[in-house]
C-alpha cells in the first residue's frame, strides 16, 4: 500500500497544524506592534512609533514565510482571525515590557514546533525553522535592550524623551 498522504504533502498533519498556529501567532504579533506604534505616536514617542511600525512589518513577513512554506510543502495554509488586540497602555514602559513578553512567547512556540519535528524526524522543517531561531535571537535582544534603556537612562525629567531617541538606534549585528 502506497503512502498516499506523503505523496501529497511533505509535512504531517500535526506539523501542518502547528505551522498554521504559528501563522496566527505572527499575525497577532504584527497587530500588537501596530497597536504599539499607534499608542507611541499618540503619546509623542516618535522614534518608538517608527520602531514598532518596522516590527509590525517584519512580523507580517514572518507570517508570510510560514504561510508559503505550508503551501509549498503541499499543506493547507489557513488565513488567521486576529481579534482582541490591546489598544491602550498604562505607560511607555509597559509597551516595551509587553513587546518582550510577546517575543518570548514566539520563541517558545517555535521551540515547540522544532521539538515536534525532531520527534517525527522531519528534518526538512527543522532546517526551515533554523532561520526563525536565529531571528528570535535578534528579536529578544532588541526587546531586552529597549527595556534596559529605562534602567540606564531613568524615566525622570527628560528621561522618556531620551529613551525614545535611543530606541531608534537599537541594532543587533552579531556575526555569530
Amino acid at each position, binding site marked *: 500500500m502506497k*503512502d*498516499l498522504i506523503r505523496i501529497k504533502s511533505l509535512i504531517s498533519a500535526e506539523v501542518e497544524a502547528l505551522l498554521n498556529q504559528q501563522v496566527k501567532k505572527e499575525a497577532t504579533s504584527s497587530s500588537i506592534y501596530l497597536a504599539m506604534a499607534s499608542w507611541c505616536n499618540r503619546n509623542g514617542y516618535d522614534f518608538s512609533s517608527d520602531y514598532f511600525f518596522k516590527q509590525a512589518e517584519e512580523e507580517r513577513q514572518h507570517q508570510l514565510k510560514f504561510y508559503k512554506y505550508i503551501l509549498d510543502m503541499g499543506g493547507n495554509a489557513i488565513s488567521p482571525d486576529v481579534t482582541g488586540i490591546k489598544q491602550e497602555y498604562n505607560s511607555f514602559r509597559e509597551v516595551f515590557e509587553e513587546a518582550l513578553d510577546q517575543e518570548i512567547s514566539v520563541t517558545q512556540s517555535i521551540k515547540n514546533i522544532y521539538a515536534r519535528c525532531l520527534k517525527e524526524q522531519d528534518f526538512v522543517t527543522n532546517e526551515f525553522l533554523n532561520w526563525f531561531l536565529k531571528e528570535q535571537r535578534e528579536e529578544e535582544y532588541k526587546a531586552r535592550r529597549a527595556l534596559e534603556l529605562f534602567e540606564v537612562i531613568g524615566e525622570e525629567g527628560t528621561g522618556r524623551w531620551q529613551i525614545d531617541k535611543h530606541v531608534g538606534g537599537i541594532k543587533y549585528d552579531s556575526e555569530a
Partner: protein
Amino acid sequence: MVTTLTTNPQISTLSDVFSTQNGAVYQCDAERCWYVDFAGKVAKFDYRCLLKLKKAVYNVDIEAKLLDSSKKPDIEIIFICACDHTYILTLLQIIALKEILEGTFVMLQLNNIIQDRLYRVAL
C-alpha cells in the same frame, strides 16, 4: 473529488485500510484515492476530501447530542464543502463512522512510519 459508485470497485486492486462491522475504508494506489464503504454506499474520496470528511465527522459534538432531550430528530447532515457529496446520518451512524475514520487515520499513519523507515535507505 467524490464519486458515488453504484457497483463495487474491483476489490482486487484495493488494499484494506480499516474496517469494522459497520463499514470499511479501502485504498486504491492506482487512482490515489480511498473508497469509503458506509451507510449502504461506496464513495470515492481523494486526499483533500477525506480530510474534510474527517473534520466534518470529528466536529459533531456527540456528547451534546446525547444529552439533548428535545424532540428534534437525531439526524446529522455531513456536508463536505467542494465535494458534491453528503451523508445524512443518525447519531449511532456518526459514532460508527467516526470509529472507522479514527482507525483509518491510525492505519495511514502507521503506513507512513513504515514507509518512511523502509525507503529512507538508498536501495
